[in-house]
C-alpha cells in the first residue's frame, strides 16, 4: 500500500517535534503570556483603582464609599430644586455659589492644592441638562475617575429633581426606564438580543483569529519538515523504506497532532488561570463569581447562555473535527510546497501563497461581522462553504447555536470532499517532485504531472 509506514513517520515526527527545545520554550512562553494576559485582565482594574475609602454606620456596616473629593462648589443654573443631601453621605462637603463666584472658584480649583471641584449644572438645547465638573490639573489629589464617580451621584440628583419638576412620581419614572430587552428573530423563531449578537461577533473574531494563527503557524511545520528532509537528503533514505505518500501523510498528521497537543497545553493552562483568577476581578463579575451591580456586566452575564447556546459536547466535538479537517487541508498544501523546493532558503517565498490563501479565508470570515452583517449575508454564508475559510467560519457559528444540522453537515462534507480530492492530487504529484532538485516546481508544472507520463 502506498501509505504503509505513515504511522511510524507520524510517531517519529511528533515525538521529535515536541521534544525540541524550540517547541518546549515556544509553547511555555505562549502559555505564560496568555495566562498573564488573563490574570492581568482580572487583576488590573483593581490594581489601577485606589483603595476605596469606606463609610460605615454605627453597627460597622458599609453604607457608602467615600469620594476622594473633599468639597464641591455647585452652580445651579436650572429651575430644578436639587437635593444635595446625598453628598455628605459619601463624605463630600458642598457649597452652592452664585454666577459671580464662578471665576474665582475656578481659579482656586485649577491653582490650589485642595481636593475641590467646581460643578456647573445648566439646561441644554436638547431638553436635558449638562453637568460639567472642573477638577485640579494635578491628578495626585483628584483624577478623572474620582470625578466620574461623583458625577454618577450628581446625575441621580438631577434626574430625581427633574422627575419631580415634571410632576412624575419616582415609581412611574422607574417603570418607564426599565430595561427593554431587544432581539431579532427569523420567521417568528426565538432570536438573540443585541448583546448576544455583540458577544457572538467578539467570539467569532477571536475564534477565527485564533484558528488562523494555529493553522498558518503549524501547517508550515509540515512544509518545513518535508523541505528539511529534502534539502538534508534524508528523503532518499526514507524512500528506500516507504513510499513518498506515506511520508507526506505522516508529516501532515504529525503537525495536526502537534497543534492539537499545543492547544490542549496552552488552552489548559489558560483555562486554569481563568478560573483561578476569576474571583478577583472583572471577569469574575462577568461570569457571576463576583457580585456586581454594574448594569453592563449584569446584562452580559444574562446574555452569556444565549450567546453560547451551542456550547455542548456534540458541538465541541464537531468544532474539533472541522478544525482538524481544515488544518489537514492547509497542511497538505504546505506539504506540497515543502516538496516543491530544493533549498530550505526558498521555503519562505514558496509559503507566501499559503499565507495569502489563509488570510483571504480569515477576512471572508470576520470582516462581515465587523461591519455588522447579518447571518444571511452572502459573504458569511460563502465563508462557511469554501474550504479555505470554513475552518474559521463554522466553529464560532456552531458555538453560538445559529446553524441547523444541514448548515453544518453540508459545509463539512464539502470540506471533506475537497480534502480527499486535494489529497489525491498531492499523491499524484508528490511522487514526482519529492526528489526534484533545481528550480522550484510551479503549480502549472504540477498540473502537467497528473497527466500520464509527464514529468518536469
Amino acid at each position: 500500500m502506498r501509505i504503509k509506514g505513515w504511522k511510524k513517520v507520524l510517531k517519529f515526527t511528533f515525538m521529535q517535534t515536541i521534544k525540541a527545545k524550540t517547541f518546549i520554550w515556544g509553547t511555555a512562553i505562549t502559555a505564560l503570556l496568555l495566562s498573564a494576559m488573563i490574570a492581568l485582565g482580572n487583576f488590573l482594574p483593581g490594581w489601577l483603582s485606589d483603595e476605596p475609602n469606606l463609610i460605615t454606620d454605627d453597627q460597622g456596616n458599609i453604607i457608602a464609599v467615600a469620594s476622594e473629593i473633599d468639597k464641591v462648589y455647585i452652580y445651579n443654573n436650572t429651575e430644578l430644586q436639587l437635593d444635595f443631601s446625598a453628598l455628605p453621605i459619601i463624605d463630600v462637603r458642598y457649597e452652592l455659589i452664585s454666577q459671580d463666584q464662578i471665576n474665582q472658584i475656578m481659579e482656586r480649583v485649577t491653582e490650589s492644592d485642595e481636593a475641590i471641584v467646581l460643578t456647573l449644572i445648566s439646561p441644554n438645547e436638547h431638553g436635558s441638562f449638562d453637568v460639567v465638573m472642573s477638577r485640579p490639573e494635578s491628578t495626585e489629589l483628584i483624577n478623572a475617575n474620582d470625578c466620574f464617580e461623583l458625577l454618577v451621584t450628581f446625575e441621580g440628583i438631577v434626574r430625581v429633581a427633574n422627575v419631580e419638576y415634571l410632576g412624575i412620581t419616582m415609581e412611574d419614572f422607574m417603570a418607564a426606564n426599565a430595561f427593554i430587552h431587544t432581539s431579532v428573530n427569523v420567521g417568528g423563531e426565538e432570536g438573540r438580543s443585541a448583546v448576544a449578537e455583540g458577544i457572538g461577533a467578539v467570539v467569532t473574531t477571536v475564534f477565527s483569529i485564533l484558528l488562523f494563527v494555529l493553522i498558518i503557524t503549524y501547517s508550515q511545520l509540515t512544509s518545513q519538515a518535508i523541505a528539511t528532509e529534502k534539502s538534508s537528503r534524508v528523503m532518499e533514505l526514507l524512500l528506500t523504506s516507504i513510499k513518498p505518500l506515506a511520508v507526506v501523510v505522516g508529516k501532515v498528521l504529525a503537525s495536526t497532532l502537534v497543534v492539537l497537543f499545543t492547544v490542549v497545553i496552552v488552552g489548559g493552562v489558560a483555562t486554569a488561570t481563568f478560573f483561578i483568577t476569576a474571583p478577583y476581578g472583572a471577569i469574575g463579575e462577568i461570569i457571576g463569581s463576583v457580585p456586581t451591580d454594574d448594569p453592563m456586566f449584569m446584562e452580559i452575564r444574562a446574555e452569556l447562555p444565549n450567546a453560547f447556546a451551542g456550547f455542548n459536547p456534540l458541538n465541541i466535538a464537531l468544532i474539533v473535527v472541522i478544525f482538524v479537517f481544515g488544518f489537514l487541508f492547509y497542511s497538505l498544501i504546505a506539504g506540497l510546497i515543502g516538496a516543491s523546493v530544493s533549498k530550505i532558503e526558498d521555503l519562505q517565498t514558496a509559503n507566501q501563497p499559503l499565507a495569502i490563501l489563509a488570510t483571504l479565508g480569515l477576512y471572508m470570515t470576520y470582516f462581515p461581522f465587523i461591519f455588522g452583517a447579518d447571518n444571511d449575508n452572502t459573504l458569511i454564508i460563502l465563508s462557511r462553504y469554501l474550504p479555505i475559510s470554513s475552518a474559521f467560519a463554522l466553529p464560532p457559528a456552531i458555538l453560538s447555536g445559529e446553524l441547523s444540522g444541514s448548515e453544518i453537515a453540508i459545509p463539512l462534507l464539502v470540506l471533506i470532499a475537497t480534502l480527499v480530492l486535494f489529497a489525491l492530487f498531492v499523491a499524484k504529484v508528490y511522487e514526482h517532485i519529492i526528489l526534484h532538485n533545481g528550480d522550484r516546481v510551479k503549480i502549472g508544472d504540477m498540473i502537467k504531472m497528473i497527466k500520464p507520463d509527464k514529468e518536469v
Partner: protein
Amino acid sequence: MSLHVENVRKKYGDYYAIKHLSFSIERPGVFALLGTNGAGKTTAIRVILGMLAKESGTVTWNGRPLDVVNEKIGYLAEERGLYPKYNIVEQLHHFAELKGVKKKAATTAIDYWLERLKADEHRKKRADQLSKGNQQKVQLAAALISDPELLILDEPMSGLDPVNADLFKEVIREQIARNKFVIMSSHQMSTVEEFCENIVIMNRGDVVLQGNLNEIKKGYGRVNLSVKADANILPFAKECGLEPLSQTPNGIDFKTKSESQAQELLGKIVNAGITLVKFELREPSLHEIFVEKVGGGNVIKSGEDCAG
C-alpha cells in the same frame, strides 16, 4: 535470488538520463556501476529503487517487480542524508522501524554497527555534530541494520580517510562473505577492482561496456608493458616499433601491439647485456579501460585488434 534490470529508460523532459540499461546479477557478490559525472549512475540507482518512475523497462528481484517497501534493501546514498538536528541513535531506530525491524533487534543491530564502524563514541550526538566521515558511517549503519539481502552503495568511500576506507572495505567483504548482493557505484577504480567481478560502465545515459571484469581485461590482452633497466633501452624499443607512453623513475611504459612485440624487446635488452630491474607485461587496468571508454586518454587496442 537475482536482480534483473531490463531495457530501463528514464528521461527528464526531452533529455534521456538513461537511454538503455540492462544487466543482471545472478549470484551474491559486488556489481560495479561505473561512469563519469553525469553518466546516469545515481539516476539508475534511484530508478532501480523505485524512487524515480521510469519510461520503460523492468526491474525484478527474485522474479518479482522490485518493491523496496517490502524487500530487505539497504541503500547508502552518495550525499550525506541524516536529520541534522536529531540524535543519531534515535534516527537509526526510526530507520530500522521503517524497515520493519523490531525495537529490540534494532537496538542490538545499532549497538553492533556503531561499535563495528567505530562510531560508538558519538551515539549521544546529533548528526550535525559529526564530521562527514562519521556521518557516512552512521548512514552505512542505517543501510545495514535491517540485514538487507540487496545492498546498494553509491560512492561509499567518498570523503573517507584511508583508515575508514579500509574499515568500509572490511564491512563490504563481510557482506560478500555472507552472500549478499551488492551494487557499488564508485569513481575509485582500485576499490572496484578489489571487489567487483562484474561491471557496467555508463556514459551519457548509455552503457558503453559491461560484463565480467576479468573477461573484459582478457579481451584487451596483455598489452601494457613497463620496463626499468640500468641503461637506456629506448633505442631497442624503437627498433621494435615501440613508442614510449611515459617515463618515470619507476620505468618506461609502452603500449604493445602483441605479446610477441614485447618479447622481441626483451630479447634485444638481454642480448645487449643490460641489467633489467623490471619487465612487466600486464592487462590494462580498469582505470585505463574506463578512460578509454568514456573519454580522453590513450586508446587501448584489444589483443585481437592489435594483432599485427
